[in-house]
């Protein structure tokens, strides 16, 4: 057993991080959210992601893809989650090889997958599923436009499972990032003549964020290796928890600054909320895991 990342996987992670830092750093993030009432999708960046292999990562090389597997995809989506990369990333990734142009980033794909909302409907070239009667809403996340839609999911269990797993990977990235932000602030912000991180109450908050990140990481990576539905359900539950609770606790550590528009913390929390509402809900995951207990104990 060698659960650790291979050297190639480490290199892939570093490469994705480098690309995203260069092309979607903090300034770009803030500019994107202040640009318009409804955010625009950056087509140039989308094509660059396509060129870099973000969407074709798991397509066989014979089909023009990179020929890698779910573990690599999970690492890439974790990085996307860290920087809050906008766009229907998962839907387009899953459409690679199915919808022409998705793999290269020429075509933007979104999906109606039964969650009651659909992301980035206006920007998508191709919509998988039935988006008839979709109504725009004011999205809580300034970087994810949402429509309310009544359509059922596509019925494709594999796609629902993979969406859940890649969504968990994005949540993991957010959770890890807010952990860093919380620790950074706790190390530098001074009150009572010392950094607030010297207070046990603050230490406890920060340590709690980290514990949830590390547990979620083990669950998400393992699910990427096994692709087992119960493992994916566990990964989803723990990653959602790590991201949402982590962002809330990070906000708390930031005090008044955390409540401002200027801070990035709320962006992480809002995105984490959007991802947590994706299909494969908490209830579903818990029921899958309960049922697995019976089938495995028999």
């Amino acid at each position, binding site marked *: *057993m060698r659960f650790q990342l291979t050297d190639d996987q480490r290199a892939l992670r570093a490469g994705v991080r480098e690309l995203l830092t260069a092309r979607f750093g903090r300034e770009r993030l803030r500019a994107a959210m202040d640009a318009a009432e409804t955010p625009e999708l950056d087509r140039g960046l989308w094509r660059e992601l396509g060129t870099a292999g973000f969407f074709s990562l798991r397509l066989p090389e014979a089909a023009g893809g990179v020929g890698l597997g779910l573990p690599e995809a999970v690492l890439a989506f974790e990085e996307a989650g860290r920087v809050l990369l906008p766009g229907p990333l998962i839907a387009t990734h899953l459409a690679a090889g199915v919808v022409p142009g998705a793999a290269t980033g020429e075509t933007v794909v979104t999906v109606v997958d039964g969650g009651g909302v659909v992301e980035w409907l206006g920007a998508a070239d191709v919509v998988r599923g039935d988006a008839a009667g979709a109504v725009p809403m004011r999205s809580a996340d300034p970087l994810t436009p949402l429509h309310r839609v009544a359509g059922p999911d596509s019925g494709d269990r594999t796609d629902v499972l993979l969406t859940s797993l890649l969504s968990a990977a994005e949540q993991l990235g957010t959770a890890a990032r807010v952990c860093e932000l919380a620790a950074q602030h706790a190390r530098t912000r001074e009150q009572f003549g010392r950094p607030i991180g010297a207070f046990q109450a603050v230490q406890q908050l920060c340590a*709690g964020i980290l*514990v949830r990140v590390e*547990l979620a990481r083990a*669950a998400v990576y393992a699910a*990427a290796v096994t692709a087992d539905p*119960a493992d994916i359900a566990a990964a989803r539950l723990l990653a959602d928890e790590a991201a949402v609770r982590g962002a809330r606790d990070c906000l708390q550590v930031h005090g008044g600054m955390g409540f401002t528009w200027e801070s990035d913390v709320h962006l992480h929390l809002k995105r984490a909320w959007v991802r947590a509402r994706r299909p494969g809900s908490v209830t579903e995951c818990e029921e899958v895991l309960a049922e697995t207990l019976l089938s495995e104990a028999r």
Partner: protein
Amino acid sequence: MDLSDTPQEVEFRARLREWLGKALPSLPTKPSPDDWPGRRAYDLGWQRTLYDAGYGDVHWGADPAVRMIFLEETEKAGAPYVGANFVGLLHAGPTIAAEGTGEQRARWLPPVLRGEEVWCQGFSEPDAGSDLAALRTRARRDGDDYVVSGSKIWTSHAEVADWCELLVRTDPDAPKHRGITWLAMPMDAPGITVRPLRTLAGTDEFAEVFLDEVRVPVANRVGEENDGWRVTMVTLSFERGTAFVGEVVACRRVLGELALAARENGRWDDPVLRRRLGRLNAEFRALWRLTQWNVSEASEGVPGVGGSVFKLRYSHARQELYEAAAEVLGEGGAALDLEQPWVLDRLSSLSYTIAAGTSQIQHSIVAERVLGLPKGR
């Protein structure tokens, strides 16, 4: 990221399984928890069996991944865990192996591996719990002996131990971490009084040990005088990663039993309870993956703080597991009946967030050592 066994691991697992299948049926009956001589004989006997089969040193000789397979397979097969050999195999032994002289290793290690001698731990004191370095048990030098006076607490297996790994203060004037020395104290030395302590679960799980002018030869000192804190840190870091492998396997089995019991008595129809068990399944699956992650890191020689992260979450999860068990037992007072399965476990699980460093201390360790927050208190 690879969760499959290497060819060597496949081979080890298969060989171990086959051996367990033959060895376990001839195991003697497990003694009652109050029968200390019986427990000693049982635990030493199992260690001897392991030793004869070539598994005696698996806890400290082996690669962490092999140790993990050993713990996983023995738990799944229902084999005993280390029991009274815990300190000898997982604390004192590895410390002596790392820090002892050749003579000390030759004297103390083989009897531990062969299942002949039991060790206990004399670390905590009534006024030195989380703040272990505040310990006050005094040792003054008198010729070739240290003369030790003071008291220790929470000492498991003290009744039946042959040796005690003992932390004493040899320099009361030095800063608290600098005046501590690690000694191996023979438990039959004059001046030692052992008083059993009853736990809230009603068992005599551990004891207080009173030391009145106990003479311990200077030759029994491991490491330098006043260097005992560093020696101790070697001990405490040893079991990190694999300490709870068997327990996580056991918890996952209990969770399956809870599900079956709930379906049997109709509680399974309650979606709130069902989902609670589902959530616990996520928790313990992830804890198992975290164990595998930590073991992989340990195999690569990465020191890591996975131990504290794991312990924080696991100790809490274990308590939640037995809270859920009480729900499964349902109406009619079953959850208050100590004869029912899981009820005693619910009580004993309460020690998990306290023993081996409270959750509060673990949070500070994680905050300071992993996240780089300034030292608090």
